[in-house]
């Protein structure tokens, strides 16, 4: 049972009482209820539940805005559909904003008037965060990042031991003692980042990238202080916490003096730092930032690494991470890399910027309470994969890899899920 205090209500409403944010006010007041967004949304498509349409989520937020900040809403709430921010509304807000949206932004590109609906959902999450209603499972991932420096609570020793173990394996594989995974080296060209799930449980992608860096003769390093590319506070709606995490990355870049920050294959990590952090930190970065996807494409295009597309013979398809394609503009790079590294490639329908979210974005994988719904919305992706007939699904996002791995088992797809770096490493031709 929820009992909201007046202080909680005030803090929540303060998020909407932001008169210098013209984007928020415009997008809150402009939905024309055309309904086009409905069939763009994986939650509506999977469930056919009209309360899960993007327009309904927009209206949930807009109805609170009307109740407190418009003349008609304040005077005649019933007539204008204005709703009070009270105990009864909180469960609905948590369910719709946290549990029924990955903020994949597919509705944005189908909206007849171009509303940024995902931004409004995130604003709803910001209100809930201010009032103390972030799901405990998601908050626990944020807390791990804040208190330990990475979202899985990996200690310094555990991390260094893992990297050394991977380095020895790499040297054995290449029969070359100069192959290395350099830690904390100053003044390199590249500071590379990781998703903590890589050192903890899935390190093949670290080895793959290290192999590529070795082949490219890159000058690179990983920081033991700040290698975590993720920023779950961006999803929980707590920009103060998101700022702490983003600041750490920025400070570590400046401390090590690398020329360029290369973000691992992580859709939200790219979005939360490269594109959104300058907005919430209100600063410009004085270093270059690219994703490893762009770097891999660049290495191949420039001839810095050589690849043979005849090594991987299975049929391959590509899952586009929402945060990279719709929210990051990285659409062609992964396709170029695959055109050079595999022979039998097939696109999903739809794909590219119109691709369906895998269902695991927006922090969904961290929130156990929505597991069943996540598997249900993921059926769209499972059907897409099955229809391609592919044996390998490539996706340049560790979060998507996890959702696809679970879908693979749940829907018995019998495919392999790989990152882009793993494909490039497999196709690599060493001198």
């Amino acid at each position, binding site marked *: 049972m929820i009992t909201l205090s007046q202080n909680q209500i005030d803090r929540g409403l303060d998020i909407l009482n932001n008169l210098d944010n013209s984007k928020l006010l415009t997008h809150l007041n402009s939905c024309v209820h055309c309904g086009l967004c409905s069939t763009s949304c994986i939650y509506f498509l999977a469930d056919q539940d009209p309360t899960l349409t993007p327009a309904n989520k927009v209206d949930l937020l807009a109805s609170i805005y009307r109740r407190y900040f418009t003349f008609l809403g304040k005077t005649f709430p019933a007539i204008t559909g204005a709703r009070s921010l009270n105990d009864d509304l909180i469960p609905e807000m948590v369910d719709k904003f946290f549990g029924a949206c990955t903020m994949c932004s597919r509705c944005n590109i189908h909206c007849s008037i171009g509303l940024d609906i995902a931004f409004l959902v995130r604003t709803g999450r910001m209100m809930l965060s201010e009032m103390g209603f972030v799901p405990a*499972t998601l908050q*626990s*991932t944020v807390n*791990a990042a804040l208190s330990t420096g990475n*979202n*899985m*609570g*990996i200690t310094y020793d*555990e991390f260094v*031991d*893992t990297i050394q*173990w991977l380095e020895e394996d790499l040297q054995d594989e290449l029969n070359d003692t100069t192959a290395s995974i350099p830690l904390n080296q100053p003044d390199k060209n590249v500071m590379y980042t990781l*998703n*903590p*799930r890589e*050192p*903890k*449980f*899935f*390190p*093949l992608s670290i080895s793959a990238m290290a192999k590529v860096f070795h082949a490219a003769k890159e000058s690179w390093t990983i920081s033991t202080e700040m290698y975590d590319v*993720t920023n779950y506070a961006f999803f929980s709606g707590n920009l103060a916490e998101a700022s702490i995490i983003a600041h750490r990355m920025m400070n570590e870049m400046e401390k090590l003096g690398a020329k360029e920050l290369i973000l691992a294959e992580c859709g939200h990590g790219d979005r939360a730092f490269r594109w959104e952090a300058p907005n919430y930190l209100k600063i410009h970065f004085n270093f270059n930032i690219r994703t490893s996807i762009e770097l891999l494409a660049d290495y191949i295009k420039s001839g810095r690494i050589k690849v043979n597309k005849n090594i991987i013979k299975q049929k391959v398809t590509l899952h586009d991470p929402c945060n990279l394609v719709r929210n990051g503009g990285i659409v062609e790079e992964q396709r170029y890399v695959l055109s050079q590294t595999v022979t039998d490639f097939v696109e999903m329908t739809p794909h590219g910027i119109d691709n369906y979210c895998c269902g695991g974005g927006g922090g969904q*994988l*961290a*929130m*156990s*309470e*929505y*597991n*069943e719904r996540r598997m249900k919305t993921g059926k769209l992706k499972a059907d897409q994969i099955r229809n391609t007939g592919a044996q390998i699904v490539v996706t340049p996002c*560790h*979060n998507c890899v*996890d959702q696809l*791995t*679970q879908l*693979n*088992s749940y829907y018995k797809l019998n495919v392999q899920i790989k990152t882009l770096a793993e494909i490039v490493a497999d196709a690599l031709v060493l001198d």
Partner: protein
Amino acid sequence: MATLEIDGRVFEVDGDGFLATPEIWNEEVAQLFAKYDGLTELTDKHWAIVRFIRRNFEEKGNAPMIRSICQDTGVKLREIYELFPLGPARGACRVAGLPKPDGCV
């Protein structure tokens, strides 16, 4: 709290199907959870991995690094993903009765 029924036994679990009360775990529970994931027969390698993860959890309160799993059990990295198709977290840690690890897993 959700429940999970396997072969007539009912377990309290989180939404992801991880045991809500890790202390009730024993090897019979492990076998039932594995069966639920479609692992009908647990080999010596499966057991070596599960027992190591469990011991680490009981001693340190968390899931071990994949490096420790490989080095302690002698099972090769790629083989672990074949033994537990859902991966070390949703596969092996769940069978070992651990709570779900934080992060993208």
